[in-house]
């Protein structure tokens, strides 16, 4: 087991910078998730830690040792690939033992490690099968098994669940969480799915265009996003954003007016000395934070466009009078249908405010 540290790591493909000076620390035994939209550099970053991509400048350390020039195999890591990358012509057992055999590992020890990994993942009955005889979930498990067999100091996961269907994804997600608790090994996990990040991570690293947007515990990011990007990225359905304008800015709060919403005004408990009257701001409200009419600080009349009733939860896709689409999440609410008028309220304590550059105003 080991901590992993990145110091000002950058990566260029030719002249194009892909990673712009990333620094972060992964504590021993921590589960860190790199999350971001496609093209944000999260997979590249993981492959740099694995040693499969060169780094342009900066320093990567694993277990206190700088590994910039160390071969992947010597870094003490094991990697699980998105495509599983199982050798199709070998049985599960041969897949698990291949690396050890090729490196002349003691036969009895290889056997022991394979048995142990198979036991942890409950794939003993599959050992004699070939990958194509396995289901997607079983393949994923074998791929994880191959990583366990290496007894690494850190596991690297590259979008391991994105080739599975929705239901299996939930199941494997729970299994990976369980595995981490069981092994206690450092894990670095890359995904574009914020749900996976929320449910698995001790610490989430949100990346965009090769830069870290925010790092922190899942609910920290959810409750207290640093900027509009993180606010929109974390949480499902997405946070709703409404354009607004500063009307008045004082030492105890800011009064904003929503644009195109019939001059609706909302006092926000935000102290931002730099703001001036007339500055553009964005108001963010999570789908589950719309209150009943009159329960909040500002009422907003809407027309329901599409209503989805999922049993315990309902999602209402509604439009404001000026046509902006909003999503509202309601528990045990089954009555709204299309064209229904609906009034929701915004409570300023649960709303977020962002400046014109997308930075959070607190």
């Amino acid at each position, binding site marked *: 087991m080991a901590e992993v540290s990145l110091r000002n790591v950058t990566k260029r493909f030719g002249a194009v910078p892909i990673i712009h000076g990333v620094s972060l620390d992964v504590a021993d035994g921590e589960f860190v998730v790199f999350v971001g939209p496609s093209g944000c550099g999260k997979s590249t970053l993981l492959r740099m830690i694995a040693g*499969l991509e060169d780094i342009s400048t900066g320093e990567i350390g694993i277990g206190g040792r700088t590994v910039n020039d160390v071969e992947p*195999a*010597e870094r003490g890591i094991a990697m699980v690939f998105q*495509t599983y990358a199982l050798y199709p012509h070998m049985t599960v057992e041969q897949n698990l033992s291949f690396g050890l055999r*090729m*490196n002349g590992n003691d036969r009895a020890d290889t056997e022991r490690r394979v048995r142990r990994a198979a036991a942890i993942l409950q794939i003993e009955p599959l050992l004699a099968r070939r990958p194509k005889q396995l289901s997607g979930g079983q393949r994923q498990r074998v791929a994880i098994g191959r990583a366990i067999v290496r007894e690494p100091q850190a596991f690297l996961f590259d979008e391991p669940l994105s080739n599975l269907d929705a239901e299996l994804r939930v199941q494997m997600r729970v299994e990976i969480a369980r595995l981490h608790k069981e092994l206690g090994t450092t894990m670095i996990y890359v995904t574009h799915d914020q749900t996976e990040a929320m449910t698995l991570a001790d610490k989430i690293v949100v990346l965009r265009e090769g830069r870290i947007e925010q790092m922190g515990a899942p609910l920290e990011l959810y409750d207290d996003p640093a900027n509009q990007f993180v606010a929109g990225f974390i949480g499902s359905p997405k946070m709703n954003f409404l354009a607004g304008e500063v009307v008045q800015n004082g030492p105890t709060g800011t009064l904003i007016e929503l644009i195109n919403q019939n001059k609706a005004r909302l006092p926000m408990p935000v102290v931002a000395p730099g703001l001036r009257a007339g500055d553009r701001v964005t108001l963010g409200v999570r789908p589950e934070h719309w209150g009943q009419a009159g329960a909040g600080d500002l009422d907003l009349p809407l027309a329901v466009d599409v209503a989805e009733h999922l049993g315990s939860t309902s999602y209402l896709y509604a439009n404001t009078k000026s046509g902006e689409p909003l999503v509202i999440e309601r528990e045990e609410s089954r009555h709204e249908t299309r064209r229904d008028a609906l009034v929701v309220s915004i409570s300023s304590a649960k709303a977020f405010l962002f400046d014109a550059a997308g930075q959070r105003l607190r």
Partner: protein
Amino acid sequence: MSKSRRERTQTIALHLLLLPLALLWLFPLWMMLVFSTMPDYGIFSPNIELWFSDQFFANIANMQADTDFLRALGVSVIVAVIYTALSVFLTSMAGWALARYEFVGKPLVLAIILGTITLPYFVVVIPQFVMVARDFKLANTWIALIVPPLFNSLGVLFMRQAFSMMPNDLFDAARVEGVKEWKIYLFVAMPLARPTIAALSIILFLASWNNYLWPLLISTDRAMFTAPVALGSLIGLTKVSWGGIMAGAVLLTAPMLVVFLLLQRHFIAGIAAGAIK
């Protein structure tokens, strides 16, 4: 059902169009079989004979007497087997290098390999003969029969395609596990290329088996004749034994045909697997 009715009409129309062509094209094969059972003059008989006669074994016996055909078959087998094994090894190595590594001059190498596909064999064969026979003095040797045709452009392209269509993650996974590069080639890439290798082996074996021009030029010693050359040598005799030649051709072709039809699944799968994925 309307669906199958419609499709049946289409099929019949296609058959009517393609059948005459197929006949035109299968007819010579039929005639080869017929000729192989006829006495030598049969092929020149003024009537067109369409059915078998009974001289097949007599033709075979004559041919074995005129030229040591069994020995020539043996030479052909040895040459084809060694040639196929060596050529698969070399083309797969070259294909691996072209698929996996970036190096200076790679586009030029690729262009040259591709370019040689356009060259007619009879254009290359004369300077090749001059070089091998005169400069290296290798006429009538096994090396001369086997080595010069070894490098096969299409084979290299085929293997390159097979390797470059393999998911890179497989090789990355092996690298992370500390597997050496040549072990990755040998234990990961080659087993995965098996369908392509099977198809390529069939193609190379057939090419060697059916090769006529090169062994004809390079082997003047009767003991180093391959089967096609032995058959060809009958044409040079004062009395050309057409029945014997046709019977020999049947003997040459039949085993290949049987083996090939037995392996056809692998061949089709391999062509598909080789060229992509």
